[in-house]
């Protein structure tokens, strides 16, 4: 390979900051040899190519829906995950030390965890201050003593590392609650392999799948009583959590069920998953909810994210949680000041990783030191909560610093001062060129089935967007990097290439009730959005794309269409109730509201939001293509809304796109979803909504009789909204008449737009849902059978009959009205049977 000499590369493409340690350069200033192939390649292809690659990465990330939610983001948007094309590279010899350091630390924390919830030797021996543990809000007294009966171990551990000026790696943070980032690390690697496959050819990069298999085996092995086929769930706080993407990603990847607290219930001293087929025992919970929120009975009573009674099940050894409840207290930077001694005491070992020098203000001398040197330190709280921040006094105003000093003096035990270390830099691709940026590497390890800590050969590197920050976080806009650990020539190949699907037996995949409910409503809202959009499109074209001179018959047509809109969307009073006369004369504001007002139930915006929210809370259910469409609907609608578009004449174009996207969403689902319970509910939701809509439109547009010209318009509009005008012409080739339309749209069992068709599909879906007594009809089956029979037995001439002098087809209206109420009852019965978990939980008042 034609290597250029490194001077050219150095001067050509990358300039580190003078005086700081940079990853690329050895002490003598020469480029480390393992950086050469990649720098060389970048140099050869130039920044344009790298820019293209960076764009492609972002494109894939967006398409795959890889997001990171930012709290309090006013736009409410999920931020697309950022990945820098330049990886962070570790040599094997360098990594070997890191690996040992992580293992040592994990063992140490595992021991501390067991001690502070057990014998308290460390406190009694004076190795840990009492208040550091017992006064820390993360210490959960109800968890004390569980270990004695059912040993609990730290299963997952992650550490944030950065390279200090001496070239050694330092630990900045320990993550022991529910370390996040593993999913992002896996996704980063898969995107990198897609976008820059050539780079990997020159390196022997350790594969991540090996670790992921160990991770799965580990979780399998911790189930109570070593069950061979445990049910493992991922407990997430829900779609608003910052790393929700990852919860869904990991659960899909490993085949675990993604659940929220409401999906689980404690009964008979076990944890159960509520599925539409009944309750199923849960053996292992991978916890992504902070421990204090996990059980409102014994921990935080205000929590809605947990499962009441969970702790008692843990105490009885009937469920294993990874990480165990109570580990939050260990995410305490003040511990850094004490663990070197603990390590000597327990293992007779010095820590492999140096800690960042840490002074805990709970000690008098240390507090004085911190206050005297505050300008040179970073101040951190020992408890991480929503408002957790680190303070950099040298960058704060004098007033802010004095306020901080008062806070420290009032609650000294709450604060630590940490040395400001200038960490190493590594090249990142910013502004079309390589720039040095600080990097923090999160390294992951898991306690494997044989009780040893295994470290992932890789990790999640995040680098700061600005050059001078000591704190790197996703919340403040960091960018991630793929993390490469280079293996010696032949070791990578010798790693057991296991395909550890221990049990190829298909696990029962009963649908959690909450997921079922979401699918049902996604079905309903997708259909509702579609039909609302169609009617709106028709109305807007009718009103705004015709000449100004309207004959009186046209006025009547418009009025009828507008009231049909109010009935369909149930946005009463709207164009039908009090004050409708004025609105009918000038409909524009009301129309805008029915399109745009997200707070108004029934508006198009409201339906779309409900649709999107529903899809997001079960995002592990959608195929990637489906997800892309959802993302597009959200993206386009957000833009449409935020442009504050008051020009209603331009709406049809937006509505066209929306309708196409919604149909694409439905199409992808019917192509990709297995015809299991999930599909049945999604489809049932759609069919039920479609049936209700068609009934509503029939009642608004076909029940009354006017003059021929108005009748024609009404019938034409009805067929148009239902996309059946061409069908009609093809079938009847005749003048429009109500009887023919009803034959086609009400009774025809093979027309996919007819009510008969919807109802028979709905009936099939409902019949295929799980049932406890298959030979007895369930309530919802009875309702749907009733509707089905009414359609089959209907007599068109009776329905269309008009009494002498009357303009209303009373028979038709009654008939349709009864069917609508039967369908509503059917939906209620479904809800009651399958989604009944939605009942509220309330904390009984405490007695005194």
């Amino acid at each position: 390979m034609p290597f250029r000499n490194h001077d050219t590369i150095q001067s050509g493409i990358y300039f580190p900051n003078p005086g700081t340690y940079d990853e690329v350069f050895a002490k003598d200033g020469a480029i480390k040899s393992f950086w050469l192939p990649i720098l060389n390649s970048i140099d050869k292809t130039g920044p344009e190519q790298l820019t293209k690659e960076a764009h492609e990465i972002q494109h894939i990330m967006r398409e795959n829906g890889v997001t990171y939610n930012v709290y309090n983001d006013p736009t409410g948007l999920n931020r697309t995950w950022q990945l820098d094309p330049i990886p962070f590279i570790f040599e094997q010899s360098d990594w070997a030390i890191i690996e040992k350091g992580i293992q040592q630390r994990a063992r140490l924390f595992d021991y501390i965890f067991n001690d502070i919830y057990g014998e308290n030797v460390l406190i009694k021996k004076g190795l840990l201050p009492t208040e550091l543990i017992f006064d820390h809000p993360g210490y959960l007294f109800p968890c004390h003593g569980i270990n004695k009966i059912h040993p609990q171990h730290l299963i997952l551990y992650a550490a944030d590392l950065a390279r200090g000026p001496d070239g050694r790696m330092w630990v900045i943070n320990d993550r022991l609650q529910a370390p996040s980032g593993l999913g992002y690390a896996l996704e980063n690697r898969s995107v990198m392999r897609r976008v820059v496959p050539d780079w990997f050819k020159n390196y022997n990069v350790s594969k991540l799948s090996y670790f992921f298999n160990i991770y799965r085996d580990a979780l399998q092995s911790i189930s109570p009583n070593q069950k061979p086929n445990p049910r493992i769930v991922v407990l997430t706080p829900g779609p608003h959590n910052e790393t929700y993407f990852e919860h869904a990603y990991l659960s899909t990847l490993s085949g675990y069920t993604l659940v929220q607290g409401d999906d689980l219930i404690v009964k008979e001293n076990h944890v159960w998953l509520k599925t539409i087929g009944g309750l199923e025992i849960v053996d292992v919970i991978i916890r992504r909810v902070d421990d204090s929120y996990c059980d409102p009975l014994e921990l935080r009573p205000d929590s809605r994210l947990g499962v009441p009674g969970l702790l008692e099940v843990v105490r009885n050894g009937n469920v294993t949680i990874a990480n165990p409840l109570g580990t939050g207290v260990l995410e305490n930077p003040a511990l850094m000041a004490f663990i070197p001694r603990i390590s000597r005491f327990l293992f007779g070992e010095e820590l492999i990783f140096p800690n960042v020098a840490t002074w805990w203000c709970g000690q008098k001398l240390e507090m004085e030191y911190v206050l005297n040197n505050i300008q040179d330190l970073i101040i951190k709280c020992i408890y991480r909560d929503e408002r957790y921040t680190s303070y950099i006094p040298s960058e704060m105003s004098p007033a802010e610093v004095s306020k901080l000093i008062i806070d420290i003096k009032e609650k000294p035990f709450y604060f630590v001062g940490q040395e400001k270390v200038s960490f190493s830099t590594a090249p990142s691709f910013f502004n079309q060129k390589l720039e040095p940026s600080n990097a923090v590497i999160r390294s992951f390890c898991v306690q494997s089935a044989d009780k040893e800590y295994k470290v992932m050969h890789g990790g999640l590197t995040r680098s700061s967007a600005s050059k001078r920050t000591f704190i790197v976080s996703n919340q403040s806009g960091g960018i991630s990097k793929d993390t490469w650990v280079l293996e010696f020539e032949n070791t990578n190949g010798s790693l057991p290439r296991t395909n550890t699907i221990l049990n190829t037996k298909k696990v029962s995949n009963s649908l959690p009730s909450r997921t079922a409910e979401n699918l049902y409503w996604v079905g309903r809202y997708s259909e509702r959005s579609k039909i609302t959009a169609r009617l709106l499109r028709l109305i807007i074209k009718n009103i705004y794309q015709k000449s100004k001179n309207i004959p009186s018959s046209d006025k009547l047509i418009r009025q009828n269409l507008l009231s049909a809109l109010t009935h369909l969307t149930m946005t009463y009073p709207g164009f039908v109730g009090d004050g409708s006369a004025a609105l009918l004369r000038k409909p524009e504001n009301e129309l805008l509201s029915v399109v745009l007002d997200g707070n108004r139930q029934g508006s198009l915006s409201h339906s779309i939001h409900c649709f999107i929210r529903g899809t997001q809370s079960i995002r592990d259910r959608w195929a990637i293509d489906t997800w892309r469409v959802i993302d597009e609907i959200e993206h386009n609608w957000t833009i449409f809304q935020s442009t504050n578009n008051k020009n209603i004449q331009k709406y049809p174009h937006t509505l066209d796109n929306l309708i196409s996207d919604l149909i694409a969403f439905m199409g992808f689902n019917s192509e990709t979803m297995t015809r299991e319970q999930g599909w049945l509910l999604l489809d049932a939701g759609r069919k039920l909504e479609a049936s209700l809509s068609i009934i509503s439109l029939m009642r608004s547009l076909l029940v009354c009789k006017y003059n021929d010209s108005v009748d024609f318009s009404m019938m034409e509009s009805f067929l148009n909204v239902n996309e059946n005008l061409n069908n009609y012409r093809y079938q009847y080739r005749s003048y429009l008449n109500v009887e023919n339309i009803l034959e086609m749209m009400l009774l025809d069992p093979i027309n996919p737009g007819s009510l008969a068709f919807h109802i028979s599909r709905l009936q099939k879906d409902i019949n295929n849902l799980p049932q406890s007594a298959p030979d007895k009809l369930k309530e919802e089956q009875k309702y749907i059978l009733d509707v089905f029979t009414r359609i089959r037995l209907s007599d068109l001439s009776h329905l269309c009959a008009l009494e002498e002098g009357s303009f209303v087809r009373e028979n038709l209206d009654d008939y349709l009205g009864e069917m609508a109420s039967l369908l509503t009852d059917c939906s209620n019965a479904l809800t009651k049977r399958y989604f009944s978990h939605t009942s509220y939980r309330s904390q009984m008042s405490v007695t005194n």
Partner: protein
Amino acid sequence: MKYKVIHTTKYEYGREVDLCHNQLRLLPRNTFEQNILQNKITVIPTPNIYTKRVDFFGNNVHYFSIEQPHEELLVTSQSEVEKTNMFSNSIPFQNSISWESVKDAIASTNPAYFDARMYAFSSHFANVSIQSNEYAKPSFERGRPILDAVSHLTNRIYNEFKYVPGYTTISTPVQTVIMEKKGVCQDFAHVAISCIRSMGLAARYVSGYLETIPQPGKTKLKGADASHAWFSVYVPQSGWHDFDPTNNLIPGQRHITIGWGRDFADVTPLKGVVLSSSWHSLKVEVDVERIG
């Protein structure tokens, strides 16, 4: 002296409840001053799961769940308690060591004070604040014997605070109680604990009962109709010393201890979570009768 205690708690729900999980701390524990002769908890309807354990603080905790539809929950705790060995650790207040030396002992790393030390910190319901420190200071003059200082504080709370049932709820912050000077026994115990901790000392919350039927010629004590609460302060060597700020008493023959913790949250008599969207009502009755 022997007492029979009957403590009943009755919940009524507006709509049938399918499932409830509960935790109770209603069984008095053995202490130097009392022996539990017998006790029994009855729950109606019969729980599906019922477990017992002793918590971090040494209190008796029971857990139960009822997993079938019910509209009512009735929990009855019955105990016979013998008060013994009264004032085993009593010393004249004036002879106790100074509060500063207690503070220094607690602040030291001496493992002998490990148990006391965890009661020296802020806790959720008895958090230390500038207000509690300001209120405490006048009682803690330099060099004052600790029990004398605490007794002075107890006396001030009794005289300056008004016993007003219903004025506070359990979530009323202790700072508010100090400002408003109104509340019930839990509040006064929390105020005292918060004040004592603000001086660097250790105090714990005691949950218990008071004799409900006054002896002839004596008035009925406040807080006797429900469970009662007071506090205890730590002194090296002699141990924990109880004070009742609600009645300005040193708890003795007429006080029966259920358990203790850092504050109310650690010794809540009965708490539970039900799955229900409806209302519920609660009725508590406590009867403490002298039987010998």
